[in-house]
């Protein structure tokens, strides 16, 4: 396994005892995550989860509070940790598991993994990369709609919540029509994508029109805006994805990743780092993803067999819907010899913990929803 001991470039997250930076992977020497802060006199520890109504996945929160205010919170994501046997798997058997690291961001994971394979084995991937961009942008649209829906749900705004749910389902149907599966499972191959974009542009424009009217209604709602502004503020140089862009950092792998480069893409940033800024960045990205899909040109598929029984090391980093996703692979005779996967949820959990300090209980779900954290991708142990 490649390992270095000097940091290089911005921080993008952690997998087991490796910290990943833009240009380096650093092996950690015995650091641990630390335990929840000691509670002070007058404070109590309130336990929420791992299984409770309102939580989409199993996760536990330990909240230190004197009453209404939250002094600190620690996320325990370990409950649903999955041990996934992937070492010694061939590329396509491993891919079936990679698709299921985070089913909601399956396209991002599969594509990032395949880019790392192609990098390791020196495989040209020109024909498929624009189709892959379409996949990732469709996934981003659904993921951002899901978060905006979560915010309206936290505010008890059931009309826009249902309208956004409707749009999420429509996007799932668009994905299903184009890729034969609502979560892109089985759609990705080495330099190839199983897809059919016949009605894509027409359908995606309907989403744009519908979302625009919901977005304008939400912006016009003073009550909704009040709940988001100055709520869950965090500004941290070690941020990622929309959370970073919402606090003024122009981090976006679409601008600087070696693998999938988006020439015409313009980054949108906000400065206040609160739930409102994250809402604005995500909403803007729904529109910009649609625009990218509208304008992209795809090449014909070529059906070619690739010799995968080779050896090499490679990596790839892409902008998944919630931030930097990174894969480093070591392949020996066509089998996975070692793997490092860094997902954005590691950093986003840290940001959530910081953002919650000093907030009150009624803000909890707004702040949690605003980071788009998936425990599934955080708690993976490859064996």
């Amino acid at each position, binding site marked *: 396994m490649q390992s270095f001991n000097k940091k290089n470039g911005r921080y993008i997250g952690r997998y087991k005892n490796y910290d990943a930076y833009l240009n380096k992977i650093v092996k950690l020497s015995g650091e641990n995550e630390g335990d929840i802060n000691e509670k002070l006199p007058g404070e109590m520890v309130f336990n929420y989860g791992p299984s409770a109504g309102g939580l989409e996945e199993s996760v536990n929160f330990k909240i230190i509070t004197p009453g209404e205010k939250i002094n600190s919170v620690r996320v325990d994501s370990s409950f649903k940790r*999955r041990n996934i046997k992937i070492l010694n798997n061939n590329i396509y058997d491993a891919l079936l598991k990679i698709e*299921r690291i985070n*089913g*909601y961001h399956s396209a991002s994971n599969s594509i990032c993994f395949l880019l790392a394979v192609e990098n390791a084995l020196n495989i040209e991937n020109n024909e498929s990369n624009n189709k892959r961009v379409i996949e990732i942008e469709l996934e981003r649209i659904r993921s951002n709609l899901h978060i905006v829906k979560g915010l309206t749900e936290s505010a008890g705004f059931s009309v826009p919540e249902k309208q956004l749910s409707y749009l999420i389902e429509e996007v799932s149907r668009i994905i299903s029509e184009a890729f034969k599966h609502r979560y892109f*499972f089985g759609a990705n191959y080495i330099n190839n994508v199983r897809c059919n974009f016949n009605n894509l542009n027409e359908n995606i424009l309907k989403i744009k029109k519908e979302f625009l009217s919901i977005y304008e209604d939400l912006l016009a709602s003073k009550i909704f805006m009040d709940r988001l502004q100055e709520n869950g503020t965090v500004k941290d140089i070690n941020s990622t994805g929309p959370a970073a862009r919402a606090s003024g950092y122009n981090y976006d792998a679409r601008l600087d990743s070696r693998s999938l480069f988006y020439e015409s893409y313009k980054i949108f940033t906000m400065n206040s780092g609160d739930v409102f800024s994250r809402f604005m960045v995500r909403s803007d990205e729904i529109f910009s993803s649609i625009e990218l899909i509208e304008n992209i040109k795809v090449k014909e598929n070529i059906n070619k067999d690739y010799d995968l029984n080779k050896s090499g090391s490679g990596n790839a980093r892409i902008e998944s819907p919630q931030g930097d996703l990174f894969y480093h692979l070591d392949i020996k005779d066509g089998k996975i010899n070692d793997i490092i996967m860094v997902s954005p949820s590691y950093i986003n959990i840290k940001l959530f913990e910081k953002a919650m300090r000093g907030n009150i209980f009624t803000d909890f779900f707004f702040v949690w929803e605003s980071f788009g954290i998936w425990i599934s991708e955080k708690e993976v142990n490859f064996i």
Partner: protein
Amino acid sequence: MSQWFLRGIKKGIKTEKNFKDKYKPYYPSKLEGKSDYNCPVNAIKNGEWDENKCIYCGKCDLNPTKDEKIYKINDAMPEMFKKSFYIYPLDSGTCGACNAEFNSIFYPQYDANRFKIFLSNTPRHADALLLMGVYTENMHDVIKNAYDAMPDPKVIIGFGSCALTGGIIGSSINEKFNVEIAGCPPSPYTIISAILKYKGDIK
């Protein structure tokens, strides 16, 4: 709030009477035909296809039919649940897609509430525990506690290939399920169809 009400009305009814057939996914759906492909989860054995094991990867020569009826009903639903059926979903170790698909049955297109299917916020008020994901050590007691907290009679639904057989990821949650809903993840069409069948609302 009345403004939102009017905006909602303006959009009209979005719930689909018979969910639009054209949107049924190819995967997962009932597979047909013959294949001697070396299935990664051994879902093809002696020419027989096992819908619970299948992860619907599309690698073999079996053909997807878009038929959503990939479920098993192992006993009769307690009569008292037919008027309202409250489900508490529990994630043992999912990838997240099972969670998302289960939630989608409450989206406007499907609106499961109209079929008297509801989401429970606690196992204490639940008629059914819907288990999804692979077995994970740390969730073992959480599942047991949720089951113990439910009032009698209790129904357990196995949801998705991970929970039913371990799928491609790990081991199954070792429970005897009253209802088995296949798919990776099960589609909203399959989920609603399975529950309606269990309720006796469809043949």
